[in-house]
């Protein structure tokens, strides 16, 4: 929002508490965050009537950012540690499986589209899919700790575990989401911002965590 404001683009933020809020919003960018398993189940239930709408947004190239739980529940299901399958929104065909250890660390990702991405990941779920990703994990765990890939990038929809938070230190991603939406709406390209502070912050984290060893945390204490 700030980055739009700095460019003189008016933004309206609508908080979605019930399906009608979304249907009437005519949104250009949508964002779904994460929460605890309990909160996630509530949110998914409430979002169910919107699934068709969101699917259409994604296929139309509306910019979307989904993080952690929001990312996991784009898929078909989320399998808990006890083997229970929580139904996802089914926007895209993929799944997430929870495991005991939590993947919790500073993460560095090298992306062809976005360059160096830095953030913090904290998730018990392992996500498996065949869509294009955000990029290769240089340090940290990423989608499932095995594939060496992080996130999902389909049309203008981004799913990611980087909640650290992703946008301020990776302004190129923020501008991608804004830029696609802006171009879609006005046909014009987005003016770049200087972003000196952002670039230094990104670089500082990158250099500091390039050679550290990420450890898995036990979920149970």
């Amino acid at each position, binding site marked *: 929002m*700030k980055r739009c404001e700095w460019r003189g683009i008016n933004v309206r933020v609508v908080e979605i*508490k019930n399906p009608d809020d979304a249907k009437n919003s005519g949104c250009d960018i949508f964002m779904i965050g994460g*929460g*605890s*398993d*309990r*909160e996630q189940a*509530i949110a998914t239930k409430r979002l169910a009537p919107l699934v068709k709408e969101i699917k259409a947004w994604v296929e139309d190239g509306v910019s979307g950012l989904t993080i952690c739980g929001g990312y996991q529940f784009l898929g078909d299901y989320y399998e808990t540690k006890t083997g229970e399958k929580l139904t996802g929104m089914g926007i895209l065909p993929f799944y997430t499986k929870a495991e005991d250890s*939590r993947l*919790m*660390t*500073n993460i560095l990702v090298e992306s062809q589209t976005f360059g160096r991405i830095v953030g*913090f990941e*904290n998730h018990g779920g392992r996500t498996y899919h065949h869509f294009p990703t955000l990029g290769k994990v240089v340090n940290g765990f990423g989608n499932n700790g095995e594939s060496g890939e992080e996130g999902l990038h389909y049309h203008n929809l981004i799913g990611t575990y980087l*909640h*650290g*938070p992703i946008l*301020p*230190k990776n302004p190129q991603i923020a501008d991608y989401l804004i830029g696609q939406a802006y171009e879609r709406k006005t046909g014009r390209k987005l003016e770049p911002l200087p972003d000196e*502070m*952002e670039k*230094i*912050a990104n670089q*500082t*984290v990158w250099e500091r965590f390039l050679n550290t060893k990420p450890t898995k*945390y036990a*979920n149970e*204490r």
Partner: protein
Amino acid sequence: MKAQIAIWAGKTAGTLSKVMGNSGSTIPGVVARKVDGSFLRHLRKHTNTVVYITGTNGKTTTTNLIAHLLECSGKRIITNREGANMVTGIAAAMVHNAPLLGWAKNDVAVMEVDEASLPKAVSDCPPDYLVVMNFFRDQLDRYGEVDLLIEKMKDSLKTIDVKLILNADDPFVHRFSDLNKENVYVGLASNACQFPNYSVSESKYCPHCQSELTYSNIHFAQLGHYQCTCGFGRPRTDVSAEKVIQSPNGIRLVVDGEEYVTPLKGMYNAYNVLFAISLCKELEMTSSEIRKCLVKSQRADGRMQEFMINGEMWRLNLVKNPAGANVTLSEFFQSKQKKQLIFCLNDNLADGEDISWIWDIDLEMANRLEVESFIASGKRAHDVALRMKYAGIPEEKINIIPSLKQAVTHAKGKNTPAYIMATYTCLAPLVGILSEEQNLREEETFGADPVPLLSRYIKPIWGQRKYHLLNETVRMAWNQRSGRRNQEP
């Protein structure tokens, strides 16, 4: 016998670690528990009453307050005053408290217990009273999620006989009610005080039916007078603060018609004081005893601590999470005088490696003319600076100075007081740096008497048993001192 060896091992380890120059307050506890795995059960055996204090914010202050009040009323107590609140911290307090042989007999154990450590502490040493203060989003990287955490804490209490002192104003804490223990509900009456408003980041949903809670009165964050359509709502209080009044010398509370005064400053201390009063009443202290002792209470290091530097009153407060940081900021902005704001953020394990919580702080409210300069400091200085920038603070007002020492020096160069928020591992170094700055000033003023100055250099050496360094230090101190005097015009 095993316990005795554990105590000796712990004491030895503690002394060794001090000689090596570590301040590690939990090392004796770590060692004692290595020798005797269920070391904590001895606390139960040798103490009449065991009190645990847990929750996200205010644990340390409340623990210190309760310990102070009980001690003042003549009780023999054992406590982990330094905020070492994991099982090892409690064990360390036990080692420290034990005489060379056997155990000291105490009336009350007053222990601050970290939320995630509670189940372990309870199983080794079940408490008689448990104070549950509040739950805010805090260091989620260590704890997992708040929901999960609360359930684990509750599970650990199921089979024991314990009286709960619960915060009536926090819907999260109210979830302990269904344990069906004996409960004492403590809260602030509606409009008891005016906490400045800021955006709420906690989820305010009913734990039973998941609907959004409605509030007739919000104190701060999710704390207030709440109600859900399903019937879940704020319980009736047993102890209630009807009025909290702030003054330059501290806060005044009217609790169930009786007035209490404390030198602790800051509205957020209202809950801490209220919990301390409630618990001490449970332990049969009289109102007049509590009132008398409360006046003499002192705050812990880094809790709205004041430092006189260059003739200006600086302030330092610990922040761990958005709720605490927001309250800190609103305290800072009670005065409209010109000031600087320093935010020191580290990401060590004790601070929380995940620093995303700073984006939930309402730093937007710090963007005001009276704040002439902002300093982002600590290992995560760049993240703080970005947060400030996105709060709308002009970039030219933001200084990025990762070194704490340099940040303080920079701020000293301006003629306005600095208000500092710092995360856990920034706190001790900052207290050191700021105390030194403050002492520097005192020496210049009261320079004629060499005794306090010398003792400052000698004391740490006595502590470390490095006598041979003594002569050297006296010489250094003397040189430094004459050097400074010579520089004066």
